[in-house]
């Protein structure tokens, strides 16, 4: 339990620092602080948010910004499909669960996956999702109001901490051979397709690896 809370808060703090960057960049791109906050509360998926404001900042068409944010958001839908049976949200929990479905909450959730017991997975998902939501939005507000207390997140090595945290969360899953083979193929697909495809697509291309390996062995189902 302590480990779930440590993970949730660590990831929350790290994403909060990026929230400050997002707030500052959004205002720099011409959005108001209120619009920056609306992004972080309503969209709540970092990659989509950064891409949308970058396109606007570069003078791109609004339609391009919208479509790119959707493209980068597709992986959240795939996480949702993957988690839906184990989270099984009902009633008011459904819209909340949907909003909290992002890279970080999914990674922590699957890190605590246990056969025949979905409680640790659920606790990890919600605690991480809520921690990231709080820190991300407070960070966005701070950054949008012009208080850039932390400077560039990469000065603190947070651009290395983000992939390191995801790797650490994936680690326990990689003890399984099929999972390890899937991860290696996914990495290969990402490396090959990154120079060829627009941002967001290489991650989606790697989903095909899961589909291929998962469906390959014919059995019941």
């Amino acid at each position: 339990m302590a480990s779930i809370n440590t993970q949730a808060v660590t990831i929350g703090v790290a994403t909060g620092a990026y929230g400050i960057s997002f707030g500052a960049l959004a205002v720099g791109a011409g959005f108001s602080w209120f619009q920056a906050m609306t992004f972080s509360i309503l969209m709540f998926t970092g990659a989509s948010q950064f891409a949308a404001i970058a396109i606007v900042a570069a003078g791109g068409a609004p339609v391009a910004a919208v479509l790119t944010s959707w493209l980068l958001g597709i992986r959240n839908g795939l996480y949702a499909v993957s988690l839906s049976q184990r989270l099984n949200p009902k009633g008011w929990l459904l819209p909340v669960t949907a909003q909290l479905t992002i890279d970080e909450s999914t990674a922590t959730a699957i890190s605590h996956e246990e056969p025949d017991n979905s409680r640790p997975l659920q606790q990890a998902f919600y605690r991480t999702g809520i921690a990231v939501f709080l820190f991300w939005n407070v960070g966005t507000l701070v950054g949008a109001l012009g208080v850039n207390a932390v400077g560039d997140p990469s000065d603190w090595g947070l651009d290395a901490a983000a992939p390191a945290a995801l790797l650490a969360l994936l680690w326990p899953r990689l003890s399984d051979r099929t999972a390890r083979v899937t991860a290696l193929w996914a990495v290969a697909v990402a490396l090959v397709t990154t120079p060829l495809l627009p941002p967001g697509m290489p991650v989606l291309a790697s989903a095909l690896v899961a589909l291929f390996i998962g469906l390959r062995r014919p059995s019941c189902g």
Partner: protein
Amino acid sequence: MWLVVVVGSLGCYLIKLLGYVVPQDWLAGERCNRVNTLLPIALLSSLVVILTLSGSSGPLLDARLAGVAVAAVLLVLRAPFLVVVVAAAATAALLRLVVG
């Protein structure tokens, strides 16, 4: 500006919601379960690589790779989560401080 904020956000939210309203019957069965288990592993593995290596124009080898490499070594040594993450950040930050 509001168009980007509102339409972009609604789309991103609906994509998340859609994943949960897929009928459970469609997801039943062993092969579907296996795909669902492997799906986030594939997505997050490629995300780790992209976050570690991507630059504004093509792949970029920098302090991030050193940080993630240190994290991987610590994971092999069974270090706790917080130690792994802080060591990755510290490695990248110190490397930038020293090399500039």
